[in-house]
């Protein structure tokens, strides 16, 4: 122990008269060996080789609440242990001590006289005679109550952190769900399917989609991607969703809807924290003469939609010149109109899919060309088959998908009896 009994700290060679130092030193340590043993700040215990207690210091007796006569010559060390501790002592502690001659830093619980338990740290050495034969075992016992309390506190803090993280994940998932429609509208004569892939439960992504009725038998749909992640992105996602719904009621022209969204976002977010989204907005109009639908798509800088036709061909529907929404005061919005004939499937996606790493941890990303090949291999198809195939594709990428991904597919079924699977 520092200060009290370490003769090295009072080295007589350090200048002062050696005799004077020796006197002071002896005065300090008056009958020290015995007192140090008995009242050391740790417990001392000597046991015979069979574990019988031969000697024990006052400190340890006080901790345990025993009289010396209760233990010396009467009890074994293992009698002081709990049942679990005794097992551990028999199977690990004692054999290791025999083998190595010493063992240190073992955490055990001692039973006090009143039945209470004292967490301790034990170090034991075997004392051998001049012939090398083991004579007895010397053990120091350190009070580990503070340490145990500290560990319990650590464990509790960790459990609390785990709980908090679970709560946050739940909150994120809930928030994510509120950004998506609970159910897509049921459009007569149209097969609709969608999927949202959450890349990380720790960070809310910013993909969104919806399909909903507009006036006079027409239908609106949109799919978009807000830049960034987290609460900031979620706020923009929410604003974008409701602005699109409201703007399309006021004027359903797809270019006008996106122009309105652009104005709203541009007013809201400027400077060094710009927020933008890319989005496709479409209006579906049933074609009573030819069957199927006419769809007008407006794109604000979003990856082009894929059309998988009834004849087995597939192509992107480019909308060149469209600009992302929210950062330019007068963003250009490009539109295209196509007919969705019976058997055709239109697929909208966000770039979480095409930017996914094809192998988790790899450098290669999936890409637009591979996605077009994928669509060509599916066509002709249906909405649910397409979304099912995309889900399988995302599964093969595993954790290579590092951004959220949304897909929305609409399909015009062939007249009954002609539908291909």
């Amino acid at each position, binding site marked *: 122990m520092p200060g009290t009994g370490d003769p090295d700290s009072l080295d007589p060679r350090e200048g002062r008269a050696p005799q004077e130092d020796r006197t002071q030193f002896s005065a300090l340590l008056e009958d020290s060996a015995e007192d140090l043993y008995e009242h050391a700040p740790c417990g001392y215990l000597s046991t015979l080789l069979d574990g019988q207690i031969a000697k024990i210091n006052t400190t340890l007796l006080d901790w345990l609440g025993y009289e010396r006569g209760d233990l010396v010559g009467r009890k074994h060390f293992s009698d002081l242990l709990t049942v679990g501790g005794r097992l551990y002592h028999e199977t690990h502690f004692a054999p290791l001590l025999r083998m190595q001659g010493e063992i240190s830093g073992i955490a055990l619980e001692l039973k006090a006289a009143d039945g209470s338990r004292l967490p301790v740290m034990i170090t034991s050495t075997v004392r051998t005679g001049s012939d090398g034969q083991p004579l007895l075992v010397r053990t120091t016992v350190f009070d580990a109550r503070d340490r145990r309390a500290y560990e319990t506190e650590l464990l509790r803090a960790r459990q609390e952190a785990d709980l908090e993280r679970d709560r946050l994940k739940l909150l994120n998932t809930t928030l994510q769900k509120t950004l998506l429609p609970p159910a897509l509208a049921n459009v007569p004569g149209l097969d609709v399917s969608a999927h949202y892939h959450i890349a990380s439960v720790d960070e809310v992504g910013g993909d969104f989609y919806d399909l909903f009725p507009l006036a006079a038998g027409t239908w609106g749909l949109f799919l978009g991607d807000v830049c960034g992640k987290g609460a900031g992105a979620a706020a923009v996602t929410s604003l974008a969703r409701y602005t699109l719904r409201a703007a399309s009621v006021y004027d359903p022209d797809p270019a006008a809807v996106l122009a309105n969204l652009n104005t709203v976002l541009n007013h809201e977010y400027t400077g060094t924290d710009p927020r933008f989204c890319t989005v496709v907005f479409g209006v579906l109009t049933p074609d009573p003469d030819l069957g199927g639908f006419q769809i007008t798509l407006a794109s*604000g*800088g979003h990856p082009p939609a894929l059309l998988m036709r009834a004849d087995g061909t597939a192509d992107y529907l480019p909308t060149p010149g469209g600009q992302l929404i929210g950062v330019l005061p007068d963003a250009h919005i490009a539109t295209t109109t196509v007919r969705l004939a019976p058997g055709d499937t239109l697929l909208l996606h966000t770039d979480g899919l095409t930017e996914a790493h094809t192998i988790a941890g790899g450098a290669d990303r999936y890409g637009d060309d591979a996605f077009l090949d994928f669509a060509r291999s599916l066509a002709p198809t249906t909405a649910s088959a397409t979304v099912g195939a995309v889900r399988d594709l995302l599964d093969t990428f595993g954790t290579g998908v590092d951004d959220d991904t949304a897909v929305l597919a609409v399909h015009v079924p062939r007249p009954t009896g002609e539908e291909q699977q």
Partner: protein
Amino acid sequence: MTQHLTLHTRTTPAGAVVELAGDLDHRTAPEVRAALPRLGIRPGQQLVLDLTGITFCDSSGITALIAARNYALAAEATIALAAVPDRVSRIFRIVGLDRVFPTHPTAQAAQDSWQPTPD
């Protein structure tokens, strides 16, 4: 998984040239935004972002470039991009930013194109 981003800034009479290398994504984009106020752009100058070493750019990366543009415009300066990799220029075409950022084949070409505004 993704590569880190490195920024090297040098000052020319035409304005700061920032060389970016690595992945420009949601993890690294804040570094670009944080670097903007330290560039000391003066009115009439041109901020050049040299993208030669950019290996990936996602929507957050684009946000950083837009933030740089907003910063330059607020300082009454202009912005130009140099050596835009094919991957990035393809994304720029999709999001329609190819008509918003003047681009040059090299940083030197960008500097050469700069004309001091007559006061």
